[in-house]
């Protein structure tokens, strides 16, 4: 299931949902991305997350289906927040359940690497000096490319 939302989310609630009613599950891997209060040497006071409604959901669904082609996972849950966020806020959640930890770890990392380089979200940082669009990082592109080898 994929959710794009302004509201915060509860890790416990998401974990319980992944765990419910499925006795074949032997592993649940979750990742939570938080907002840092620094970037490129500046204090960041807030963040605004823009996205492309429609394409965002479509691209995340495509990433999930690619993960399922690669690993035999049970459930995949993605939550990405949009709008205004403050330092330490939760931004993104990826949870994957599977029979064994190997596929759950791998699928979770794959989904995050692809989300960071393919899903149409853009961050705008608010600093003391004003606001600026965040530049894409080469390290994120490298992280996504290693899955293509």
């Amino acid at each position, binding site marked *: 299931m994929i959710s794009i939302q302004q509201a915060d989310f509860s890790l416990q609630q998401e974990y319980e949902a992944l765990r419910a009613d499925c006795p074949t599950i032997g592993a649940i891997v979750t990742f939570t*991305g938080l907002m840092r209060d620094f970037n490129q040497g500046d204090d960041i006071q807030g963040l605004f*997350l*823009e*996205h*492309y409604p*429609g*394409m965002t959901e*479509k*691209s995340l669904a495509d990433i999930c289906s690619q993960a399922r082609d690669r690993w035999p996972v049970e459930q995949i849950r993605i939550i*990405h927040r949009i709008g205004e966020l403050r330092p330490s806020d939760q*931004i*993104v959640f990826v949870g994957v359940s599977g029979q064994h930890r190997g596929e759950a770890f791998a699928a979770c990392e794959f989904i*995050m690497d692809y*989300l*960071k*380089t*393919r*899903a*149409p*979200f*853009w*961050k*705008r940082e608010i600093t003391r000096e004003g606001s600026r*669009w*965040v*530049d*894409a990082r080469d390290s*994120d592109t490298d992280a996504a490319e290693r899955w293509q080898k």
Partner: protein
Amino acid sequence: MIRIKYFARLREAVGQREESLPLPESVATVTDLRDFLGRRDEAWQQAMQMGGLLVAVNQTVVDWNQPLSGDEEVAFFPPVTGG
């Protein structure tokens, strides 16, 4: 009509979110459309030459040689920075 959307830094540079227009005669591919929009004025020219610019047709990222027939949703945007 072709529906065009702009996002993030690019949306600010061109000063609009979206527009619809009949497919211009000179436009057969997404590159032609980018060039057509870039001929509007200096601000548009600079914006449409933005480094790393991506293009999506009907909400899927495509190559710059993707053909257009005239009833698509086309989006131009800078590299993504979510997560």
